[in-house]
């Protein structure tokens, strides 16, 4: 790792259907909140990193210049980073590298999406080559359903157990979202509600799936010197990793999911974590689909292979369990997709700085944030701690 880098402030919009504001105004709402939270002003910022997944979601091909004013980028350098669903995490990584390089002391990272302005599944389908994969990906649910069936078969997990575990995970996330003032979907549901909701793509049902949200998240990264000078409680970056896989969905193994496994391995090494299940205080997993989150628990070493369902059913991932997952309600309840990865980072930062209010995990000192993108081709992580 390079020189220490801290997160000194975060800001989020109220996420959801935000037809009440224009896209630049939505973005600025979170940017202003991040400045307020950190106690600095636009003048203090050395650079801005922005991103969506993809720009075409809102029909404007180069958002970083349409939104530059709203990100206080006038007179400053700006970078725009887009890596599909993992965009928000890549924004955080780019901002981190920039501060870490010594070329900037404070960088504003902004992830934004106004998914309700376009046809989101059609836009996402436009991300694929038209020769081959575009016909079969069928939006996100199709490929995630395939991954789930592959996983359950490989580890001989009974269909009913997978179904119950995923349903309970949906309930946990949705209950968590009730405590989150920024969350989009805030509705209490039961395991039975989830299991009876309409099938989207077997085994995925409506209540296993994230919504389309409008929203923005802004996070301010600072050097050690600046963070100490500003003096507010900071979250320290302890581990940063990202991995890609082959483009063709059929080339790789999405159960022994190398991009997830290897990326966690690197982040743990950097953070000095040897037993993630024990050492982490909470995790913010990028979880647009319940089933996939269960598999990720295994790939990241929180649960043994084939045992994530047992762990969730035993309360291990509950808010008062040993490793609370997505105390924010996760992507499952809020998905402005270009922001969603950065929201994971922001929520982890809020937790280790004790700013998470009603959703605070008591005594949280080490938190993992995650995002994934592509046809399950990319995984990225950032681990945050309360101490330098």
């Amino acid at each position, binding site marked *: 790792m390079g020189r220490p880098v801290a997160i000194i402030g975060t800001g989020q919009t109220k996420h959801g259907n935000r037809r009440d504001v224009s896209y630049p105004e939505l973005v600025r709402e979170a940017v202003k909140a991040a400045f307020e939270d950190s106690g600095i002003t636009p003048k203090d910022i050395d650079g801005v990193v922005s991103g969506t997944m993809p720009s075409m979601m809102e029909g404007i091909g180069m958002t970083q210049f349409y939104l530059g004013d709203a990100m206080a980028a006038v007179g400053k350098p700006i970078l725009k980073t887009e890596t599909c669903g993992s965009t928000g995490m890549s924004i955080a990584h780019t901002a981190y590298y920039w501060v870490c390089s010594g070329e900037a002391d404070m960088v504003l990272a902004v992830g934004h999406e106004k998914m309700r302005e376009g*046809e989101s599944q059609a836009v996402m389908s436009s991300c694929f080559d038209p020769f081959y994969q575009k016909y079969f990906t069928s939006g996100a649910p*199709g490929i995630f359903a*395939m991954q789930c*069936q*592959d996983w359950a078969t490989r580890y001989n997990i009974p269909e009913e157990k997978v179904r119950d575990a995923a349903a309970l995970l949906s309930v946990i996330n949705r209950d968590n979202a009730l405590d989150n003032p920024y969350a989009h979907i805030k509705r209490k549901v039961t395991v039975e509600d989830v299991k009876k909701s309409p099938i*989207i793509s*077997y085994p995925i049902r409506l209540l296993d799936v994230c919504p389309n949200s409008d929203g923005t998240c802004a996070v301010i990264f600072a050097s050690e010197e600046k963070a100490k000078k500003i003096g507010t409680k900071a979250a320290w970056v302890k581990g940063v990793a990202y991995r890609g896989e082959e483009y063709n969905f*059929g*080339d790789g193994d999405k159960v022994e999911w190398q991009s997830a496994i290897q990326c966690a391995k690197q982040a743990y090494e950097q953070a000095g974590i040897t037993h993630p299940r024990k050492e982490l205080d909470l995790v913010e997993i990028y979880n647009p689909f319940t089933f996939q989150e269960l598999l990720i628990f295994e790939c990241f070493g929180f649960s043994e292979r084939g045992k994530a369902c047992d762990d969730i059913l035993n309360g291990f991932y509950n808010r008062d369990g040993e490793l609370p997952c997505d105390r924010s309600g996760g992507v499952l309840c809020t998905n402005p997709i270009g922001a969603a990865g950065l929201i994971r980072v922001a929520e982890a930062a809020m937790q280790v700085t004790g700013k998470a209010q009603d959703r605070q995990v008591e005594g949280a000192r080490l938190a993992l944030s995650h995002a994934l993108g592509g046809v399950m081709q990319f995984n990225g992580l950032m681990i945050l701690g309360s101490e330098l």
Partner: protein
Amino acid sequence: MSKKEYKTFDFELSLPYRLAYGPTWTRFFEGLQEEKIFGTKCHQCNRVLVPARSFCPQCFVDIDDWVQVSNEGTLVTWALISFEFYNQPKKPPYAAGLIKLDGADVSMFHLVDGFDMNDLDKVKETLPIGRRVKAVWSEEKKGHILDIKYFQPI
């Protein structure tokens, strides 16, 4: 969030494209027109990659050793698409799957069809993981991935 309804701006963006296949994909797709599925073999990792490609994504070496693989293979996993979205290539319900063709070392992404998709239990019964499937060809072939109409359980 305000209750007031502000204006929206509605428009349709339409852009035309002409993408080059290049030599490898031209040959692969011309193969489909002749009801042949081609892969290329990497001399470094010895994998046969389908669809054919001009280099190995893992070894990053050029590959030009063409291999015709079987039209039959094994179903690795599948999904039943039951929801509709704008610009969807096919009307639901339909199934997509990964098929490991005999002679190939990676799976091919395609449709699985040729039976009633409307009853989920029937679909699950018809498509156990590991089910043998074979390519069903479209009558009119255009050198397109949908020259394989779908893969059908055998």
